[in-house]
C-alpha cells in the first residue's frame, strides 16, 4: 500500500497563451515524504504545484491523487481538494471572517464537523501556532507572519493528507520568516506529506526528504538534499545554486 505514491503526475503540460510553462513533468510524492521544489523564477515550480490540486488545469497529462486521476472531467475535484491543503504566498486569509471562522468555515460547510467540534479544533490549532488570543479578531490587523500561520492552520483544519506550500515565506518581512518556517517544520516532523516550493535553500536542505530542481518547465534534477546541494550533477543546478545565498 505504502508503495503507491500519494501523488503521481504523468507528463504534465501547461501553457499560458504562447508561454509553455510546464513541458512534461512526471513526478511522484510518497506518503509522509517531504519534497521541496527549487529553481529560478519562471521555471514553472509554482505552476506545477498549483496543478497538483487543479488550481491550474494542465492541457496534457494526468495527475493521480491517492490512485484517482483528478484530471478526469468525471471526477469531482472538490472532494479531492478537501484532502490537499494549500498555503499561498500572499496568505489569502478571509478578511470578512474572524480568525476562528477562517478555520471553521470549510470543515463545517463541507459537513466534516459540527460547529462545536470545529470550534474546539480551531482553538487547539490556534494554540499550537500561538494565535489563540486573536481567535475573535478579524485578520486585518495581523502581521504577515501571523496571517500565514493562520492560513496554515486553516488548511490543516480540513485534516488533509498532503500540504502544498507555494512560496510560503516569500512575501514575509525577514524577521517573520522564522516563525512560519517553524510551524512548517513541526508539521513535517509530525509526518505530514508536503510539497514545498521555496526560495529558502537552508530550509529546503534541512527538512526535505527529496529536492527537485526545476528550470524551463522541466524537472532537471531530483535527489536527496545532500545530493542536490553538495554534489549537483546538472550544470544548470550548479549554476543556480552558485547564485543563491545559502
Amino acid at each position, binding site marked *: 500500500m505504502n508503495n503507491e505514491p500519494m501523488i503521481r503526475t504523468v507528463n504534465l503540460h501547461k501553457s499560458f497563451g504562447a508561454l509553455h510553462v510546464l513541458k512534461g513533468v512526471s513526478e511522484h510524492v510518497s506518503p509522509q515524504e517531504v519534497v521541496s521544489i527549487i529553481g529560478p523564477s519562471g521555471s514553472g515550480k509554482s505552476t506545477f504545484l498549483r496543478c497538483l490540486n487543479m*488550481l491550474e488545469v494542465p492541457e496534457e497529462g494526468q495527475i493521480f491523487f491517492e490512485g484517482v486521476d483528478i484530471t478526469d472531467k468525471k471526477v469531482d475535484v472538490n472532494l479531492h481538494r478537501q484532502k490537499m491543503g494549500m498555503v*499561498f504566498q500572499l496568505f*489569502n486569509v478571509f*478578511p*470578512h471572517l474572524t480568525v476562528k471562522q477562517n478555520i471553521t468555515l470549510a470543515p463545517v460547510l463541507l459537513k466534516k464537523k459540527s460547529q462545536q467540534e470545529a470550534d474546539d479544533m480551531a482553538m487547539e490549532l490556534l494554540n499550537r501556532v500561538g494565535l489563540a488570543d486573536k481567535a475573535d479578531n478579524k485578520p*486585518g490587523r495581523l502581521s504577515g507572519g501571523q496571517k500565514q500561520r493562520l492560513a496554515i492552520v486553516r*488548511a490543516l483544519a480540513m485534516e488533509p493528507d498532503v500540504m502544498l506550500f507555494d512560496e510560503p515565506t516569500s512575501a514575509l518581512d525577514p524577521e517573520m520568516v522564522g516563525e512560519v518556517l517553524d510551524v512548517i517544520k513541526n508539521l513535517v516532523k509530525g509526518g505530514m506529506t508536503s510539497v514545498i516550493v521555496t526560495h529558502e535553500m537552508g530550509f529546503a536542505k534541512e527538512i526535505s526528504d527529496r529536492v527537485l530542481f526545476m528550470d524551463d518547465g522541466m524537472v532537471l534534477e531530483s535527489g536527496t538534499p545532500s545530493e542536490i546541494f553538495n554534489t549537483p550533477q546538472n550544470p544548470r543546478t550548479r549554476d543556480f545554486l552558485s547564485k543563491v545565498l545559502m
Partner: protein
Amino acid sequence: MSFTTICENIVMLLREYWHVFLIEGVSYTLLLSVITVFFGAILGSLLALGKRSRFRIVRGIITAFVEVIRGTPILLQLYFGYFILPMMVPALNLSAFTSICIALVINSSAYVSEVIRSGIQAVDHGQTEAARSLGLNARQTMLRIVLPQAVKNILPALGNEFVMMIKETSLASTFFVGELMTSYLKVKGATWLNLESLIIVGVIYFVITFTLSKVIAVFERRMRAGE
C-alpha cells in the same frame, strides 16, 4: 429684476406652491428613484449572474443588452417606454407612470449589473483560490467568500446610483409624471416666474443629493472600518 424681487418671489412661490414642490415633486422624485434602484438592483443582479453563465449565448445577449442601454440616451429610452411599450403590450393598459418606471428600471439594471460585476471582480482572485483549495465548490465560494466581500464595494456604488437616479428622473418631466421637474413646469406655467421656480427646484435637488451622498460616505467609512 433686482435681487430683492427675486427673493420676494421665491418666498411667495414657496408660500403658494410649497406642496407642489415639497409634497408632490419630492415624493414623486423619491418614489421613482426608489422603485428604479430597487427593481434595477434585482434585475441588475440577475444580469450580473447571467453574465457568469456557462452558456455563451446567455452571456452574449446580456452583453449586447447592457451595451445598447449604456450606449443610447436615457431620454430616448423614456420615449420608448412612454410611446412604444404601451403600444406593444396594450393588454396591460400601462399608465404613463408605470411605463416610465419600467424604462427607468431597465436603464438602471444595465448600470447596476456593471456595478455588481466590477464589485465581484474587485475581490482578490486569491480569495477564490484559497476557498477552492479548501474544497468549496464554485457556488459556495461565491456565496460565502466572494459576495460578502464584494458587497462592501457594491453597496456604496448602489447608493451613488440612487443619487444619480434622483437627478435622472428629472427627464421624466418630459412626460409630466409629477416629479420635481414637473413641479417646476407647473409652477412656471402658472406664474411665469421662471428663474425663481428653477432656483427652488435646484436647491431641493441639491439638498437631497448632497445629504444622501454624505450619508453614503459615512456608511462606506463605517463598513471599511469593520474590517
